[in-house]
């Protein structure tokens, strides 16, 4: 039961963050086409550092998380939707 709740809220957050990314970056895909494990950089969604800065700003407003390069590996946080959401879930204040 507990596990179910946890996985539900994880999925909700992933859906929500995917939707935020699609909106703030004007992406050509829909939120449900962003797979949790697919890379956001390079061959996956193809985000670059300009996008990452945009997403970081939206995430800071929505969840009260200030991303930092030195706290964890920046490349790792943005390696996939799941790792970004894990970071948000662990650090959110809103």
């Amino acid at each position: 039961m507990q596990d179910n709740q946890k996985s539900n809220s994880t999925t909700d957050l992933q859906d929500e963050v995917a939707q935020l990314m699609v909106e703030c970056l004007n992406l050509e895909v829909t939120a449900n086409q962003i797979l949790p494990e697919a890379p956001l950089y390079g061959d996956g969604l193809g985000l670059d550092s300009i996008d990452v800065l945009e997403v970081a700003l939206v995430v800071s407003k929505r969840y009260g998380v200030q991303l930092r390069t030195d706290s964890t590996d920046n490349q790792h946080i943005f390696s996939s939707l799941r790792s970004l959401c894990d970071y948000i879930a662990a650090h959110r204040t809103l």
Partner: protein
Amino acid sequence: MPTLPLLAHPSPDSIVAHRSDGDVTRQQFLSEVHQLAALMPAGSHLLNLCSDRYRFSVGLAAAILAGKVSLLPPTQTPEVVRQIRIFAPDVFCLTDSDLCTVDLPHLRYPAMNASTPEEIDVPQIVTTQCIAVVFTSGSTGTPQPHPKTWGALVCSVQAEAQRLGVSHDCTLIGTVPPQHMYGFESTLLMAWCSGAALSHAQPFYPADICQALSAVPMPRMLVSSPLHLRAWLDAELPLPELAGVVSATAPMPEQLALDIETRCNAKLFEIYGSTETGQIATRRPTQGAAWHLFPGIRWLVEDERIYACGDHIDAPIAMNDRIEPVTDECFLLHGRLADLINIAGKRHSLTSLDHLLNSLSGVLDGAFYMPDESDLVTRLAAVVVAPGMQASTLLAALREHLDPVFLPRPLLLVDALPRNSTGKLPRAALQALFQARNHAIRWTIPADHPAFAGHFPGRPILPGVVLLDAALQFIAAAIGLALDRFEISSVKFTSPAGPGCILTIGHAISESGAIRFDITSGSRKIASGSIALRSAT
């Protein structure tokens, strides 16, 4: 031969850099420079990829002392590295990361010993020594080398330091990398030549910038770009005290300039220059639109092209911007010449991007399109004829050659480009194509659409006729015409659409008045066709 000192720092105890583990004195810096120079291999060219600005500076100084040339390409894609190796077969790469995958012989940045007690003299560098070659992406696709001599670089950054009021007790913090011309000059050489200190950091996120600023003493200057500065202000964090802000890479919007000066209580300077010329002018955007040339720099107008010359510029250099001289010293900027694009400070030529696109295997025809710039960042788009190819395959091929900022968004696969009768591709036609797409209609096929009943049991597919009818109704509404004026000339169904599928219905009206439409779902093409218009009855 005339020489100029490597550093303007007056005493062995002067602070050259601030690092997270403490300050670096001139003595310690010079000691580390000599240690690294002794380790350098025989090759006379290096690619300095150190991501820590201090280590980059040690690498640069060691290379200068060892008589080696630092190569500064605009990006490090596999293709650019291959071309760098053709330019300089003896090139090696200096890296401070274990994860560096650049395909060149590596020199790992070493652990350094403490400095010896004997004072190390500041090296004098011959002004004609070529210390760096900066590359631009040429219009042919081959990076174009621009050699930089020590004397010319020093001359230009000294003028900059004077304009910006950089004093010897100042610290420079940069969000821009030292590997690009702007960061090379404004975060590193300007510190060396004015006796200021540089911060090792390369802050990226707003919180990083605040932390990097707080870590160094006042007076401190932030060297950045409109993109980073806007994100930094928007984050609404408490801003550390600043002595000045420097911006380049993209035009600074006036409102952002005002906001920065008000919130930071510091002057904002904008730098103008190019990889070819180095920096040649500054302005305070809050004090007026006009730019002020550095002393000694002049314009030369010839055959409707404008050239920069004088002072540190050896031979006149044609400018890629539309420049309107106002007085001998003042000028106005009116954007770039048509072929040149600039995305977040990275430059490319449209001609060369088109050339690259058309050289990809499977591409029959294709063109990049740069929409009118509306914000700090405007993205390229591309339209491509490549039967049987996926957009993702083409993007992966482009990524081998291009910095990610130049990858098209979207890359649109079409049956034919809107070329006119002479085979030319008017910008207006591309503009119409993408505008129609931007106004594209989105329609999510309802899961309970009645047409799914019996079509087919266990594998619901929306019948083509229903799809077509929906598309026509949307297009008719969008262009304000009655549906009975439409006559379908052709239609092609490429792949099936099922329940919940999100369709994008795009259309474009050609010069002859025919309407081309396409229906896509993500990067999958569902259907396309064309419609002729009957005259109103």
